[in-house]
């Protein structure tokens, strides 16, 4: 997993819950990296999972909700780092439907070793989109947060319903309707 996902996560935790909580979840976790992350490095996903689990236990907030908040924060990072990529889109439905065929293609050019989820478009109209998320990380709520922010970015809102196709959340259907 790319280092920027870790560094931004730790920054957010420190920001929202303070340095003590951050220190706690790092020391509680058994991390290969020792909790030392840089945005340019690459680290194991299992480390993120441990950090999330400990944070969830400590704050009583579900992992899904944590991921949702984190994703909303992370969208800001993307907005700042890749304004050009976002500027190529005029519409949130357009942008979301091209995750697989455009955005992830570009991501792989920058990070050839990135491990990305897939988003298969099942249906698409002018204001609706049905996609299936597949990833063994089961980070569907991270995707949901990014989607919410995408609509916000284009000054609109949407109703997004998640339907788990697999119990463990590795396959999730997103039904998106623009308001």
């Amino acid at each position, binding site marked *: 997993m790319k280092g920027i996902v870790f560094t931004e996560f730790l920054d957010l935790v420190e920001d929202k819950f303070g340095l*003590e909580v951050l*220190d706690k979840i790092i020391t509680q976790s058994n991390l290969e990296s020792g909790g030392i992350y840089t945005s340019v490095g690459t680290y194991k996903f299992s480390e993120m999972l441990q950090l999330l689990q400990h944070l969830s236990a400590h704050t009583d907030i579900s992992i899904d909700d944590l991921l949702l908040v984190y994703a909303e924060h992370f969208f800001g990072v993307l907005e700042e780092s890749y304004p050009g990529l976002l500027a190529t889109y005029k519409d949130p439905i357009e942008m979301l439907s091209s995750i697989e065929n455009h955005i992830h293609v570009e991501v792989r050019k920058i990070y050839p070793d990135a491990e990305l989820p897939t988003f298969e478009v099942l249906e698409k109209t002018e204001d609706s989109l049905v996609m299936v998320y597949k990833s063994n990380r089961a980070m569907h709520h991270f995707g949901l947060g990014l989607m919410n922010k995408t609509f916000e970015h284009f000054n609109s809102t949407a109703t997004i319903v998640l339907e788990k196709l697999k119990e463990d959340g590795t396959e999730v259907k997103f039904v998106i309707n623009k308001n």
Partner: protein
Amino acid sequence: MSQDKIDMLQRALAREKAARKQAEKILENKAAELYEAKQKLEKSYSELEALLNKTDSQLQGVFENIVDAYVIMDLMGNILKMNDAAVGLLGFSDASENGNLMDMVHPTDLKLVAGTFKNLLFEGTVTDSNFKIVTKQKIEKLVHVNASIIYDEGKPVAAQGIVRDITEINSLQIQKERLLEKLEKSNDELQEYAHIVSHDLKSPLRSIDALVNWIKEDNKDKLDEISLHNFSLIETTLEKMEQLISDVLVYSSVGVETLEKETVDLDALVSDLKTILFVPDHVSISVIQPLPKIEGEKVKLQQLFQNLISNAIKFIDKEVGLVEIDVKDNGTHYQFSVKDNGIGIEEKFHEKIFKIFHALNKSKHSTGIGLSIVKKIVDLHQGQIWLESIPNLGTTFFFTLKK
């Protein structure tokens, strides 16, 4: 500050420090990677550049050395590039001079060229287009053009063409056609002339024949043996004269190629001939292999076999005469043979006998034209004729006819 807090802050600081070092190390490696990639790029760039230069100079060489005039023009006809041959053909002083090809088209051919140009744009190519141009030196030339459109990302941007000066070839062609026409006409005239002459020559011959007969009749009792013999010599000579004239007529008509070629069954033709020809009882004619069917003129082929077979019969001096006709396939041609067991022909005459009026045997039946006709017919069928002969044993004539 509590010890716990100090410890925590120290841990956080240590993490930050370690992260910085880690980031520095990663970036250091990235920089080295980038440097290496740059070196590689530079190397392949210079390799590509060398390759491009090589290809470029090869193309330039082709462009300059092409024998035909080669011109590249934009879609308005403005010349963008031309080789030395084009400079010469179009009458420029050097390749850098500006010019428009459309302006050089001869006024009478403008409409034609406009149509051709339209075709070029629509189809992408134009082949074998001929039109007149006026060169920079005001010389009219007839040119032959093959052209094609050059596309850039699917859009036509220019046209290239190979231009040939066919002024001279064309005038030669016209000259040749005129000559052929003239030749044909004079051939026809000659033919007609031969007809008239033979007719005109034959009628005084008949008169002489009649007069001689009358004199002979009128003076039947007064003429002695010698005179009567001389009279019969006159008659024989007259007959021969008439035969000679007829043969000349045949010979002159053989050269005329009629267009009516047909499939001729030579087997049927020869068996017909056997019934038509006078074959003495002591002579037998046999066909060894079935003869093929070939494309040709029936009348002439009949004449060919008739002359050779009757020649064979004529010169048989043996008690049992044999004429054998045979054939073999040699690929492009059929090779025929007509073999006899006659008097034979000495080798020194082998060439001569095919020439007109070269009868070896002075008799009233041989005018010396028969074999000349044979040769002419074989020539017409793109074949060859020759013979093998042993004096007193016999002769074999060989000839080939194109399939």
